[in-house]
């Protein structure tokens, strides 16, 4: 079966983002970018399904300008077979991202689509679920285990109260949580090989979808600063401060 893995180029997870002085957005100039960590876990899971003889082909897809080809090459180096870039310079709302991905699902007819549960930039946690709704597929979000069982996939999900396992009829959507797997490092030979794997570019405008913005970003501000704290010298001093200064224990 074919597995489709949509991925996103985002700020590197180690970088602390800064807000622009005019409060129009965050400043991404000269900031290190990377594949979204949850998307990397999605690629790894798809590649493992291929190595287990379950998946026949792994296709990575990303939406963005030419720079997102870098992340598609990363996915190819991790083991994806081919890549699709949907080219646009716009920053699209999730519903429009999901509509573009729906078109790719219609073209490629994957049995499984694996996405990251959220991107660490916009923190929306919604594209996978939206794609599931648009394609009429079942969904297993926040997955920590995935196993294919005939025409079903069993997904164990990280939920507030613990773990929940669902059986989903294929085709299905899975979104990854942190514990699903630990992604491999791409080896140098695989990075070289990835450069020759097929990467097709399609213009977002050619899909015939109305991509009009659904949100208007009014401003972006830095979070409220916490006032500087103090270092206490002993447990006695800590307990005294919590009782008498902060008054949070009695």
């Amino acid at each position, binding site marked *: 079966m074919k597995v489709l893995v949509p991925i996103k180029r985002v700020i590197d*997870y*180690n970088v*602390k*983002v800064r*807000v622009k002085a005019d409060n129009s957005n*965050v400043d991404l100039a000269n900031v290190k970018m990377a594949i979204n960590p949850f998307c990397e876990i999605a690629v790894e899971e798809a590649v493992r399904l291929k190595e287990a003889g379950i998946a026949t082909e792994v296709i990575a897809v990303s939406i963005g300008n030419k720079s997102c080809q870098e992340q598609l090459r990363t996915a190819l180096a991790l083991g994806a077979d081919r890549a699709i870039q949907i080219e646009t310079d716009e920053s699209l709302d*999730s519903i429009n991202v*999901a509509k573009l991905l729906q078109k790719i699902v219609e073209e490629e007819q994957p049995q499984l689509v694996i996405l990251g*549960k959220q991107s*660490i*930039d916009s*923190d*929306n946690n*919604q594209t*996978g*679920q*939206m*794609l*599931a*709704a648009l394609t009429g597929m*079942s*969904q*297993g979000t*926040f997955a*920590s285990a995935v196993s294919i069982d005939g025409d079903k996939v*069993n997904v164990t*999900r*990280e*939920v*507030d*109260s*613990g773990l*929940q*396992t*669902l*059986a989903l*009829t294929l085709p299905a959507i899975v979104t990854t*949580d*942190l*514990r699903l797997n630990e992604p491999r490092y791409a080896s140098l030979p695989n990075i070289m090989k990835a450069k020759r794997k097929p990467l097709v570019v399609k213009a977002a405008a050619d899909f015939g979808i109305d991509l009009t913005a*659904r*949100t*208007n970003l*009014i*401003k*972006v*501000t830095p*979070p409220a600063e*916490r006032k500087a*704290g*103090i*270092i*206490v010298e002993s*447990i*006695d001093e*800590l*307990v005294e*401060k919590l009782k008498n200064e*902060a008054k*949070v224990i009695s």
Partner: protein
Amino acid sequence: MSILVFAEHDNSELKADTLKTVAAAQAIGGDIHLLVAGHNCQAIAEAASKVNGVSKVLVADNAAYEHQLAENVSLLVTELAADYSHIMATALTTGKNFMPRVAALLDVTQISDIIAVESSDTFVRPIYAGNAIATVQSLDSKKVITVRSTGFDAVATDGNAEIIALDKVTDAGISSYVSEQLSVSERPELGAASVIISGGRGMQNGENFKLLDGIADKLGAAIGASRAAVDAGFVPNDMQVGQTGKIVAPDLYIAVGISGAIQHLAGMKDSKVIVAINKDAEAPIFQVADYGLVADLFDALPELESKL
């Protein structure tokens, strides 16, 4: 305007977060209805009818909703949506799971994780793990919104709303519940606790988390963990506090052996008072702590327990 709020519950208890999501709905203003979708959930409907500011409680009580499967609940909510300008749920794992599906079925984008309401179409939400705060206007005709409960104060529960049973059942038939492994604890839930003590990689193993028990008992605290501690298998996933785990804002948060990665700070830096205990004086957690103690946690924890 009329607002439909999804009641967060597990068929046995109405979660306190619902009271905060209703507060967010009140900040928007309008007629507020609560939807209780579950199975054998009459007790939840009764509790929901007492939530202040709610005029009607809609109850969809059917086996199809027992586990609140996204495919089934999203169809139910989408059918009800015609009567509402805003549809809201708490940004916990249930709401995060089905609400984007509702948004897509209604052809709108979702405004996720709001922490404040500016107007009926403009909301404030953290982005980049809380390192930036965005004010976003929704241009869609219907607003689909998830609410971060730490941003709002709970409404009272002395109301008296009308309870209306819904009899139409929406079962997509493409997903089914298999099993669950619930963490059972006598302690308060992380989202509801006024004191939280969390352990990180510095705890070294799961056994050492017992060092937190006595302190938690004395303070009536919930016990949390950093991602590093969960990844290392010290404790289960439902204890994780952080950008992609639980977002908490208790009166007192005690971080023990936690270095303070951006992703952890995102989940707890709105706590009123933060205490950090770490042997590394350079650990970033000290930058957000009101009170820092540079000490070996294996010395500090027993002493703290004895002095509380």
